[in-house]
């Protein structure tokens, strides 16, 4: 088996700027207040993924999961350390693809597919499958700005899943979809896993992570807190021992 992703000591700094205009910055400086603060969104993370592995990423909101995925798909570069990947990458980052709100779903479909590296012939060939999978009906020819977040996720997922990628990234995609769509996505991702493609799956649901993944990475404030068996990861996160009442409430959502 070949390695698919190699992450070595990857660190990403973000700077929070409290003030934007010249006047605000000048006032803050004069009063001796800080004008910005730098922190590590991903902090010295290292791991290696073999081709065909399905990896679950877990962690609280703001722990750096989306940032890590952005570095793996090449939107961002690590400030320190290195990331290497093998083959084509497709997927959804931060609950949705990059769409232009003024454009129609169909126009966005072409654009997105081309950005993900599909050729013109490939898009023509797969167009019907993508449209069918997204199940958007007439809405497909309306502007994406009018879509609900679930509809956007459908379209984004439908496009990404039809790319012949070697690595598939899914960042909380299923959080906004309705149940029939979630089921369809899970089935599709299982197919991906069987076909030997590498799967990177961010989710807050212990059940689906245990079912879907053979290994889980847990991020804690940017650091890699845990790397190993999914059941142990859920245990590590204490997602399994929370109050029954908490669970009930969370499941009701």
């Amino acid at each position, binding site marked *: 088996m*070949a*390695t698919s992703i*190699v992450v070595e000591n990857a660190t990403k700094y*973000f700077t929070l700027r409290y003030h934007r205009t010249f006047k605000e910055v000048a006032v803050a400086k004069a009063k001796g207040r800080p004008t910005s603060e730098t922190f590590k969104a991903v902090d010295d993370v290292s791991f290696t993924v073999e081709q065909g592995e399905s990896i679950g990423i877990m962690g609280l909101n703001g722990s750096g999961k989306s940032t890590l995925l*952005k*570095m*793996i*798909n*090449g*939107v*961002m*570069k690590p400030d320190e350390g*290195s*990331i*290497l*990947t*093998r*083959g*084509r*990458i497709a997927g959804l*980052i*931060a609950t*949705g*693809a*990059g*769409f*232009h*709100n*003024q*454009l129609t779903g169909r*126009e966005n479909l*072409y*654009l*997105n597919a*081309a*950005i*993900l*590296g599909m*050729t*013109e012939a490939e898009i023509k060939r797969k167009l019907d499958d993508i449209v069918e999978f997204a199940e958007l009906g007439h809405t497909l020819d309306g502007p994406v700005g009018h879509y609900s977040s679930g509809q956007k996720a459908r379209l984004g997922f439908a496009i990404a899943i039809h790319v012949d990628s*070697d690595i598939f990234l899914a960042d909380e995609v299923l959080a906004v979809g309705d149940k029939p769509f979630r089921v369809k996505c899970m089935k599709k991702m299982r197919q991906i896993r069987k076909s030997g493609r590498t799967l990177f799956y961010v989710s807050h649901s212990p059940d689906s992570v245990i079912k879907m993944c053979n290994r889980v990475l847990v991020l804690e404030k940017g650091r890699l807190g845990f790397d190993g068996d999914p059941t142990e990861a859920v245990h590590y996160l204490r997602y399994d021992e929370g109050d029954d009442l908490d669970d009930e409430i969370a499941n009701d959502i």
Partner: protein
Amino acid sequence: MSAVVPDESGLPPLRPPASENGLIGVVRRRYLLKLLVTREISARYQGTFLGLIWSYINPLTQFCIYYFVVGFIFNLHAEIPNFAIHLFAGLTVVHFFTETFGAGTRSIVRNRALVVKMAMPREMFPVATMLVSLYHVVPQLVILTIASLLSGWTPEPVDFVALLLGLLICGTLGLAGALFFSAANVFFRDFGNIVSVFNNFVRWGVPMMYSYEMVDDRFGRFAQYYLYNPLADAVLLFQRAFWVGTVDPGHKSVAAMPDHLLLNGAIIVGVSLLILCVAQFVFSRLENKIPERL
């Protein structure tokens, strides 16, 4: 992508994600570029009844305004024969530059939805803007050609060379500027405004409302420094292509045209390409921080 060379085991190599960047990456992904350009063009006339006819109406009306106001009220027709063509040739090429520069500077911020989530060469957006501006040059060239032919122009090969050089100068410099400022504009939106202010000045720094003869006349031996402005040369090249052929060769305004226009034009194209390389270098330095600052 298709250009990937598999390693020994027949698999694609291990490498940094999205490593095919820069203007070279843009050239490799022509289909995506085509989509961006056609989208932009159709978006501009979306919902209009006249559609693409607007791309003729706009320059034509602007031309008429300048023609009547500057030509008759300031009485420039008297000194510059076929003043309308003299002006319109300049307007066409200058407009190509200001459009590429201005819209290109805003292109990355405008496409933030894509930039923050999708991996692609970000040079794609300024380049697409340049091609859209080039597309809008075509109707103006048509108007210019018809007007010049009606005024007695017989096209010569050298006219086409001049035309091409003028376009190359403005396209390359406009793109270089757009690369610099589109990245800078992400960090401070002030840069977009700076470019707008700059573009307002451009029109007056080139010999289209006035003739080069006047510059030569008033600046004397300093007139050569005026020619260090590459846009002035681009305008003169366009006038060489269309306007010179319509005027009596003995006329003093034609006689005053600078020498070695084509040679200078070719040198400026070379320098512009160097500037473009520098712009690309700066852009790739700033690029890393673009997605997180949008």
